[in-house]
């Protein structure tokens, strides 16, 4: 009996606080949020009417959301693709024994230390002032005007800054993977007459599959959630043309005061991210086993 009481006290000291904080900050708000999507609450009135799945149906007819949603998918696709391509290339070059590779690694990682707000403002200056100045001086039409003023180019500006921000981080993951590949396997393949390309596609890439799983997963998650970079770089403009889902949810809830609909959109984002990342992890894990 005394032991049981001691167990309870220990339980409270060791896990009680974490459990309580975790439940009150993550689980309860999440469940309450799912309930909110079934109401017509505007955030001010005390009464909320239960409306079933009406919010979800209205979202299907909401063209600004559908635009923002497809734009986000496009943004995530290109960001993840280029982040990982460049990260792999950099990791490959920086593990081949060139001079000063440690200094390069440190430099390439720098953007990841700094928050998206500051990075966004830095690039806003580059796109609005520095590049047009260079463009006009050397007569290069492509950069003579600010990219952030045109919807199409502003989208690519967002992708470029995202790739610039995260490729150094993912490079570190690939470096860890490359360093972990046993040198004798590479040597054996060279003796067997494998060229550089064969070595990369037949030996290095398959052995690097675990790094790809992690890096693609992380870049997927981060680009789906991006908010501060979007806010600082383009503010969603021009004319809401670069408003990614996260910013869209924010404006729907906190600026337009449509909490039920805003939350329903957030839940749709959650389901999308959950499905896409699980498929990705499942597929890459399968590739790892076969390798």
């Amino acid at each position, binding site marked *: 009996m005394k032991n049981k009481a001691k*167990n309870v006290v*220990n*339980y409270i000291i*060791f*896990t009680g606080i*974490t*459990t309580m*904080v*975790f439940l*009150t*900050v*993550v*689980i309860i*708000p*999440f469940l*309450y*949020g799912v309930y*909110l999507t079934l109401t017509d609450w505007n*955030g001010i009135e005390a009464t909320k009417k239960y409306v079933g799945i009406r919010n979800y149906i209205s979202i299907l007819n909401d063209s600004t959301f559908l635009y923002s949603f497809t734009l986000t998918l496009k943004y995530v696709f290109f960001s993840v693709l280029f982040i990982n391509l460049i990260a792999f290339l950099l990791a490959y070059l*920086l593990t*081949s024994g*060139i*001079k*000063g590779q440690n200094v390069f690694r*440190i*430099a*390439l990682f720098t953007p*990841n*230390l*700094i928050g*998206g*707000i*500051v990075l966004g*403002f*830095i690039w806003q200056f*580059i796109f609005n002032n*520095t590049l047009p*100045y*260079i463009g006009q001086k050397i007569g290069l039409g492509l950069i003579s005007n600010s990219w952030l003023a045109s919807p199409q180019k502003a989208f690519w500006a967002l992708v470029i800054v995202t790739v*610039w921000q995260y490729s*150094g981080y993912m490079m*570190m*993951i690939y470096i*860890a993977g490359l360093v972990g590949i046993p040198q004798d396997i590479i040597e054996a393949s060279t003796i067997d007459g494998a060229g550089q390309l064969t070595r990369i596609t037949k030996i290095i890439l398959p052995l690097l599959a675990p790094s790809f799983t*992690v890096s693609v997963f992380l870049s997927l998650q981060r680009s789906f*959630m991006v*908010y*501060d970079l979007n*806010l*600082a770089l383009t503010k969603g403009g021009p004319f809401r043309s670069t408003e990614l*889902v996260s910013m869209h*949810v*924010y404006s729907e*809830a906190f600026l337009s005061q449509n909490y039920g609909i*805003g*939350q329903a959109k*957030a839940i749709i*984002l*959650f389901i999308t*991210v959950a499905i896409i990342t699980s498929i990705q992890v499942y597929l890459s894990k399968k590739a790892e086993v076969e390798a």
Partner: protein
Amino acid sequence: MSKKVYKDYIKFFIVLLISLLYILPFIAVIINSFKTTNDIMANPLSLPTKFSVSNYIKAAEKMTYLRGFLNTLIITFFSIGGIVVFSAMTAYLFVRKKWKLNRLVFSLMIASMIIPFQAIMIPLVKIYGTLNLLNNMWTLIYMYWGFGAAFAVFMYHGFIKGIPYELEEAAYVEGATEFQTFWKVVFPLLKPVTTTIVILDGLWIWNDFLLPSLILISAEKRTLQLSTFYFYGTYTADYGLAMAALILTITPIIIVYLILQKNIINGILKGAIK
């Protein structure tokens, strides 16, 4: 042999070129932070004609830099402290006592890691708003404990599993309580995980924008990220000031990085590979 040297040069120049692309935006901001707005408009590439820190002094004053810096420091420090202390103890009990309730909470934590913050932020603001807990630094810290718990418990859990129980038994034989045993015997062994968590959560909390922007309403409670955002919005036309503000915000973390870069990079790798 000479073919290899030749190839190495090409590789070196490719990397040098890419690295320049990564560094040049920062250089551009640094150069312009010493210039007047007119000079910047006339030529954003030119070097400053005279070295003057007046932009920095004015920016620091107008964005109440010191206040923002201290707020961020306090929030980051207590958030990380709470995450480390509570999560380490929790993970320890989860590993040593495989009760049903423990297993349930642990699985709930793992599952929660796929929930994006956007799916929680609206109800979070509504609930804590109703309870009158917004605009309070401690509410924010409390929330970071909650959002940081799952990952930290997960990391500690994986590490503690590998620690042999015999070490703790010896302590119990000498009459130590569970609490003492944990802090004196187990916790020191967790140092590698603790370093990783401190670095990853430190970068996250120091640079976070969305959560503080929802919780902290009054200007004197703002973190550095928030004051930079509001300052930049107000002074967009005054480029010199705006550039100085950006550099001021970046400086603390760059200094820490230069001192601790090995630990930071190792910590990030360990966190990513788990």
